[in-house]
């Protein structure tokens, strides 16, 4: 099935990117989990952002502050009217994370390349190792839009009042508490399990094997079958908020759910809280 999105301007194909490589109004940005991947070779003209240093506050646990966001956009040659196309490895995990932050700061036109780095590589499309040096642009961030971000008190309230559907997008083994982190990654919580009442819908179920998103019909069925419907607020979470930004993107921008938030505190916050209720399995 083909992918038809509720917001067609947020998802572009590798073909589209191929046709806009030299478009001055478009900026390509690669954001990978593996921060060394960009240097191996990237889409020609793409700049690279390092999620560990450029997409978060490096002192306080938080998203990038507004002034640093403006600085990042400026040195990336991104103005308020620039069309930004994000892509990355792991089926666009951190591309979605970057898009979520750009939407928080009100960037109007930001899109994801469907299939990400994997699809570009698999299709044998051209790669470059040369890092562009964009001319600095003027950028002014909007006040943060917190309607797409959930903080702990709101999640606690949602648990008590059943006022939102909680979607745990981690693996089934993380959801049940069998493991405390994805295999091979450091354990970053004191307790395993999930937030009471959360539904387990792993992020990867939204993707095809080639890294592209499933069709809207398949996605609608995936979430509605678990009781996550468009008539109720949704809060997605994972371990640190990046996988859940992928699911947030699907629900908010591909399916067009009105009220969807990413709880970026996620399990590394909830699973370390003294006295927080935990459900297992």
């Amino acid at each position, binding site marked *: 099935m083909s992918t038809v999105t509720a917001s067609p301007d947020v998802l572009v194909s590798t073909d589209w990117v191929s046709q806009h490589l030299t478009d001055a109004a478009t900026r390509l940005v690669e954001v990978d*989990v*593996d921060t*060394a991947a960009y240097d*191996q*070779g990237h889409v020609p003209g793409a700049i690279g952002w390092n999620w560990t240093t450029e997409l978060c506050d490096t002192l306080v646990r938080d998203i990038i502050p507004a002034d640093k966001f403006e600085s990042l956009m400026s040195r990336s040659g991104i103005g308020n009217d620039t069309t930004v196309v994000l892509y990355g*490895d*792991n*089926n666009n*995990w951190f591309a979605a994370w970057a898009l979520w932050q750009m939407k928080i700061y009100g960037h109007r036109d930001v899109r994801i390349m469907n299939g990400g780095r*994997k699809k570009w*590589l*698999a299709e*044998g*499309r*051209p*790669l*470059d*190792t040369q890092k562009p040096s964009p001319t600095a642009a003027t950028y002014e961030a909007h006040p943060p839009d917190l309607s797409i971000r959930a903080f702990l008190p709101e999640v606690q309230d949602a648990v008590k009042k059943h006022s939102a559907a909680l979607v745990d997008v*981690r*693996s*089934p*083994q*993380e959801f*049940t*508490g*069998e*493991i*405390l982190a*994805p*295999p*091979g*990654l450091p*354990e970053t919580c004191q307790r*395993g399990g999930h937030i009471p009442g959360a539904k387990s819908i*792993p*992020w*990867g179920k939204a993707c095809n*094997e080639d890294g592209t998103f499933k069709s809207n019909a398949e996605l609608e069925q995936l979430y509605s079958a678990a009781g996550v419907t468009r008539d109720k607020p949704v809060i997605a979470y994972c371990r640190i908020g990046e*996988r859940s930004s992928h699911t947030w993107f699907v629900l908010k921008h591909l399916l067009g759910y009105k009220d969807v938030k990413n709880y970026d505190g996620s399990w590394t916050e909830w699973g370390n809280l003294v006295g927080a209720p935990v459900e*297992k*399995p």
Partner: protein
Amino acid sequence: MKAEEFTHRRQQLAGWEIVIETYRLGETYFTTISTADAGARFARAQGASKDESEQAALEKAAHWLSQTRRFPVTNE
């Protein structure tokens, strides 16, 4: 430059389903390994041949998977 000989497959390793992706850039092969369920990439390597690259990545993956603790899934 472009990626060539891109391959993608799933297999079992130490009781986990993993996804192995390998491709060649120039004369170097690159391999990344992620867990199928969590989708997290946790091992990568490179080599002069596909076998060399994948073997090195699999050795790292086996090491990291052996460190993963599994807990009972009860409320007790």
